[in-house]
């Protein structure tokens, strides 16, 4: 899932300072599960902003709403009236949702309440870790299911580097060395021979090095096809 973090309150407050009535719009998918931008966080942020503004003598009116997914037209089209009724939209979706709103409602100011951080997962209640960097050419088959791009600080394809110590990465002793994990995993599975394969230089174009990426599935398109 996409994992995000709420921006500092002061920053959010400054962003909405010029407005009197805003829509605080949550997203019911990733950011609900990671507790950054779901219905509950919308309610908390709305209450915080209202109280802070009231204390400043500049009351703020808030409309609270959460859509199932902010990154799809079909979920954000039905809230057009709500969007029209406010001065600005404070989106609690990931960056994709914020952009979808900004694109669908071109006349409306759409502001991000979150910092979108990574693709990852919760490893225990309240703890989220990065797992994939969307490199566009997955190598997990060779690495025992542990990603060397997202989980090695240097994105090494043939690790570990000389900084791997006692299973930890030299960048930060709190980070497990991904290549140490890969080695231990393959060893436990009797698959160390997988490490004999040298991975050549990675083509970073599918990872975004070739500009913004786009995927077209012809079989799913509805547009008229010229034969």
């Amino acid at each position: 899932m996409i994992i995000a973090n709420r921006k500092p309150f002061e920053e959010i407050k400054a962003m909405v300072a010029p407005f009197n009535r805003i829509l605080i719009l949550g997203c019911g998918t990733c950011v609900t599960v990671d507790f950054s931008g779901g219905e509950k966080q919308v309610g908390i942020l709305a209450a915080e902003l209202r109280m802070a503004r009231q204390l400043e003598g500049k009351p703020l009116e808030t409309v609270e709403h959460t859509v199932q997914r902010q990154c799809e037209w079909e979920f954000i089209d039905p809230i057009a009236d709500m969007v029209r009724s406010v001065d600005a939209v404070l989106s609690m979706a990931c960056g994709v949702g914020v952009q979808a709103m900004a694109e669908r409602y071109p006349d409306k100011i759409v502001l991000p309440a979150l910092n979108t951080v990574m693709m990852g997962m919760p490893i225990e209640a309240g703890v989220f870790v990065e797992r994939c960097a969307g490199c566009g050419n997955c190598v997990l088959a060779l690495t025992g299911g542990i990603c060397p791009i997202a989980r090695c600080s240097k994105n090494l394809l043939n690790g570990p580097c000389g900084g791997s110590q006692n299973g930890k990465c030299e960048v930060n002793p709190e980070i497990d060395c991904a290549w140490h994990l890969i080695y231990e995993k393959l060893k436990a599975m009797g698959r160390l021979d997988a490490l004999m394969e040298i991975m050549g230089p990675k083509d970073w174009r599918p990872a975004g090095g070739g500009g913004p990426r786009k995927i077209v599935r012809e079989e799913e398109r509805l547009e008229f096809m010229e034969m």
Partner: protein
Amino acid sequence: MEYQPEITLFTCIYCGYMAADTAGALRIQYPPNTKLIRFPCTGKLDVRYILEAFEKGADGVMVVACPIGNCHHFHGNVQATRRVQYAKKLLDEIGLGGERLEIFYMSGGQGGTFANAVSTMVERLKKIGPNPLKNGFKPK
């Protein structure tokens, strides 16, 4: 008239509520300023409830939970503690001040401790003064 702080008191139906009940049964006097709201467990405490209480004009919020290690539901009181800590930070950011919120731990028989906790909170809130959002604020 002297300012009498209004306190919203969240408690579980186990130790917390029983302590309040014990205080009553023992005829222990404590300030009558609390509005008591019972949860099945303080693990049900939500940051949103705390903020809502303040938005609706509570001068303070106190949470009365079972002693750590004695939660009927294992660790609901630990989660309540974490949420109280988080909500204190939010209250500071809002400008109301985190000291308007506190969590206390006690077992069902501790009626005196309950009365003391309420008095402690009342004294603290008297020093801080009333919730500035109290009058004339109509949340949407």
